[in-house]
């Protein structure tokens, strides 16, 4: 049970993020929702690579007496997470710059009023 808590936490973060994107009206809050969603996925990835009593996957930093593959956490999920975080930052920057532009054109961040396309 206790081992499943990180998985549950990441699932909850994903659901909270999706909820914010789908039901919030403020564009900045939608951007926050996207970030929360991404954090949930990143947390899930990191949790997958965890091993009990293991050290960071740095080859030269290994304590005496630990065997190499079992004594370290999995390095691949960490590499994936790092890449995903970088992509997330780029996406967030672009979303926020769009929000700034929308505010300049429409004078509001309420998605109910930003609908010139639907006319």
């Amino acid at each position: 049970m206790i081992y499943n808590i990180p998985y549950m936490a990441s699932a909850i973060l994903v659901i909270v993020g999706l909820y914010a994107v789908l039901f919030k009206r403020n564009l900045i809050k939608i951007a926050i929702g996207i970030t929360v969603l991404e954090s949930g996925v990143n947390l899930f990835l990191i949790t997958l690579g965890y091993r009990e009593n293991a050290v960071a996957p740095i080859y030269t930093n290994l304590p005496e007496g630990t065997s190499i593959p079992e004594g370290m956490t999995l390095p691949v999920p960490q590499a994936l997470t790092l890449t995903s975080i970088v992509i997330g930052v780029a996406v967030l920057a672009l979303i926020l710059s769009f929000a700034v532009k929308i505010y300049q054109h429409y004078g509001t961040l309420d998605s109910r009023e930003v609908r010139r396309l639907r006319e």
Partner: protein
Amino acid sequence: MNMSYVLLHAPALLIAIPLFAAFLTPIIDRFSKRVRNIFVLAVLIIEEILMIIFAWDVFTNGIHVYTMGAPNPTSTVPLQSAVPVRIVLEVDGMSAFMGLISTTVSLAAGFYSIAFVRKETGQGKFYTLLLLMLVGMLGMEFTGDMFNLFVFFEILSIASAALVAYRSYYGDAVEGAFKYLIISSIAGSIVLFAIAILYGQYGVLNIAALAKAMKSTTLDMIALVLLISAFAMKCGSVPMHFWIPDSYTVAPASITAMLVVASQASLYALFRICFSLYGNTSYVATSGAILILFGLLSMFIGVTMAIPQKDIKRLMSYHAISQTGYMLLGVGAGLYLLGNPDFSTHGMAAMEGGIFHIFNHALYKGLLFLTAGAIFYKTKTRNLNEIRGLAHSMKFTTIFFLIGAFSIAGLPPFNGFASKLLIYESVYHVNPILSIIAMLVSILTLASFMKVFHSAFMGPPMKDVERGDVPKSMLFGMMVLTAGIILFSIIPGWVVGHIVHPAAQSLANQSAYIRAVMGD
């Protein structure tokens, strides 16, 4: 430099050349606009030529694999390991087919853009992003690695979203781009979540290695559902189609043509997941049925929404949704029959129809969006109630529009007819109702485009529009796509036999896909 060396490294070169050129473009832009245009076009032409040579080799000699950073690029599995650890590019017939589509449409869009964006600011960045879109598409189509697929998916999304908002002095352009980016990043996160689920179970990221290890657990099913919903959302199939009209309408016309192909790259990923990753699980028939359902809904709802539209690009966007339905229907029917004895008779024909339709759609829909852009360039409006009589001054555009409209409506002898006929004949054996709906949608498409033709090109000429057609570079861009349509209309049998059949064959043949990476 001999040919076999180029062919060996072609998968990496095709991605690396535009990636390198993309970041060289802003530097060249500082010195001369003219040199920059020539440079971008040269890169696109080189890509097209290299892609044709490479695709021909793949169609005749089978799957190419390329291991990034390995001393010998063809050795995918290192000696000390049982699974591939490096990033592997795997190009089979289907990937090469999609690569041909991407490079051809990019070339047309590149020529078209030269005149279309001449008066805008920030053109250096425009071409940088255009080349990055090509990188993203080719990367998604060539990769044999799940995480790499995600990375190129995000590159494509970010570049596309920035280009949709290119004319940011229109408020609605930013609005459309915002929707596009939100949809893309949700889809991206869902894809990554599914990849994490698969990695957690099998400890590998390579598609072939995953397919070999696949054990059909509940978690696999959850991952499949997540992947299908994310890629179906990104390719604009109906329950998740709402963003397509908004972002296609506001993007510059050449980018809209590119966005059509970008959506098809997601469609390719969807097919790759269903066929190559989940091809030997028990979910094949169910996912095939789901794709057929998505296809039917997209076809019907897309075309019925298109009929009342007044904005010419919005109307065409709804038709794009409707045509995506044909591809989902054709390939979905193939997936539904995969493994059945019927597959060799009807399933293969359905897949060929669906896959052939992807290429045809990219050509005629790209062409139609470019003509819509030409109309906007001339009249500064997209409202069909205000446009009339353009055939008096824009003779070439009128001809291009008519060819595109006949092709999308599936009139013989155009290429749209060839692929639609394959779909009608084969899905009839799955269920006759599918064929009837497909034909009905085709008739409605013709009706809708005749309405556009009549209101935009016929009637007395508009007063405040200057005489003459659009600039030559725009006409040339449209001509590239028209030439493709005419070529495919003249020799559909040869195209199906030599290009489409190898693509469909390689998509259906999962064991060959696995063997190319994992060995025997």
